[in-house]
């Protein structure tokens, strides 16, 4: 089967992001960028399915500026076969991304689409579900286990309170949760090989998708800061303060 994997270029998860002084945007121009951690897990799952002989081809797609090529190359170094970049300078929101993905799904006809459950910049947790609506494909979100057999995929999902397993007919969409797998590292020889793998660049116009944002960011600001706390010397002092000062116990 063919698997389509979507990856997003985001600020590295170790970077502490701050708003710009004028509140117009976040200050990330010079911050280190990487594949969104949940997308890395999506690539890893696709590669494992290929290693098991279930997947035959892995197509990785990313959307955004030209620099997103780097993340596609990384995914190819991890085992994806070819890449598609939907290049645009417009800020893409999940609705626009899912519309572009819908067109690519029509073109590529994958049997499985794997995405991360959310990107760590926008924290939206929407794209996979929206792609499901647009394509009519069933969705297995927040997956911690994926098993494919007899034209169906069984997805164990992390839900509030525990785990739930659903069975989906293929083609289907899976979004990854953290515990699905532990992504591998790209080796130097594979990074070199990835440079030779095919990478096609297209635009949202080529796909016939209007990508203008529907939601406008008016401003960004830091969260309310907490007042500096105090260090206490003993458990007794802690309990006394919680009872008499904070009055929370």
């Amino acid at each position, binding site marked *: 089967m063919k698997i389509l994997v979507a990856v997003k270029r985001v600020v590295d*998860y170790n970077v*502490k*992001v*701050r708003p710009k002084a004028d509140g117009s945007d*976040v200050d990330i121009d010079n911050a280190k960028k990487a594949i969104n951690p949940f997308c890395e897990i999506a690539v890893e799952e696709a590669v494992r399915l290929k290693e098991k002989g279930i997947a035959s081809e892995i197509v990785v797609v990313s959307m955004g500026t030209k620099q997103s090529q780097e993340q596609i190359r990384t995914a190819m170094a991890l085992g994806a076969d070819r890449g598609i970049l939907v290049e645009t300078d417009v800020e893409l*929101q*999940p*609705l626009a991304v899912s519309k572009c993905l819908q067109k690519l799904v029509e073109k590529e006809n994958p049997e499985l689409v794997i995405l991360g459950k*959310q990107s*760590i*910049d*926008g*924290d*939206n*947790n*929407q*794209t996979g*579900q*929206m792609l*499901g*609506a647009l394509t*009519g*494909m*069933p*969705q297995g*979100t*927040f997956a911690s286990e994926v098993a494919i057999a007899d034209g169906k995929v069984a997805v164990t*999902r*992390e*839900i*509030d*309170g*525990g*785990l*739930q397993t*659903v*069975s989906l*007919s293929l083609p*289907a969409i899976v979004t990854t949760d*953290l*515990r699905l797998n532990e992504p591998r590292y790209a080796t130097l020889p594979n990074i070199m090989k990835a440079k030779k793998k095919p990478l096609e660049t297209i635009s949202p116009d080529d796909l016939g998708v209007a990508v203008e944002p529907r*939601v406008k960011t*008016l*401003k*960004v600001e*830091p*969260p309310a800061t*907490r*007042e500096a*706390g*105090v260090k*206490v010397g*003993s*458990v007794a002092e*802690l*309990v006394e303060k*919680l009872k008499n000062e*904070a009055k*929370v*116990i």
Partner: protein
Amino acid sequence: MSILVVAEHDNGSIKGATLNTIAAAQKLGGDIDVLVAGSDCQGAAQAAASIAGVAKVKVADNAAYGHQLAENTAKLIAEVGKEYGYILAPATTTGKNVMPRAGALLDVQPISDIIAVESENVFKRPIYAGNVIATVESSDAIKVITVRTTAFDPVAAEGGSAEVVTLDAAHDEGKSSFVGEELAESDRPELTAADIVISGGRGMQNGDNFELLYKVADKLGAAVGASRAAVDAGFVPNDMQVGQTGKIVAPNLYVAVGISGAIQHLAGMKDSKTIVAINKDEEAPIFQVADYGLVADLFEALPELEQSV
């Protein structure tokens, strides 16, 4: 503008998160209807009808909605919701699963996890793991929104007498089915609703040592949480995880034990009223957000804490 709130329920009763979502809906102004989609869910529908401030309860009682499978439920929400100005649901795993799908069916860009309503089109929501608060304006005719429940005080579960309307819509897409579930059993309060939460991290060293936390928790009537490090190390099940990728909590008192305080964890608990950190590393970042910090070995501090509360 009329508002539709999608109820979170277990068919028999309404979950608390729905009450917080109705509170957020009240800030928009307008009649609030509640949609209960489930199987054999008359109990939940009756409970929804008695929530204060609800105008009408719409019930879709059909096997197709039994486990709120996204494929079927999103169709229903989009169909019922197209007559409304707003569709709201709590930002729980159920809400996050189904609402974006409903949003796309309506050709709407949903807004996730709002923490404040500024005006009828403007909302605040955290981005970048809570390090930045964005104020966003929606231009969509129907606003599809999930609500961070800890940011809104719940409305009263009693005192209302809404009319209950039965819907005969039955969308069965036939592409997905429920196989089973494994729910973690606990007598302690639910993490996201608890007044006091006590969490353990990698410093707990193993799962057995969580017993020390449980003892303190039971004395305080607290829920027990964990950091991602503790979950990944297999000390406790993952539904106990507090953080950006786990649960978001905002109790009156949050006690972090053996937790360093990574950004990811802070995103899940930094809106707690009072934060206590117990850690032997005095440089741990958790002390920067803690109201009360105790630099101590948790294996000595926890038994002493249990004795003195």
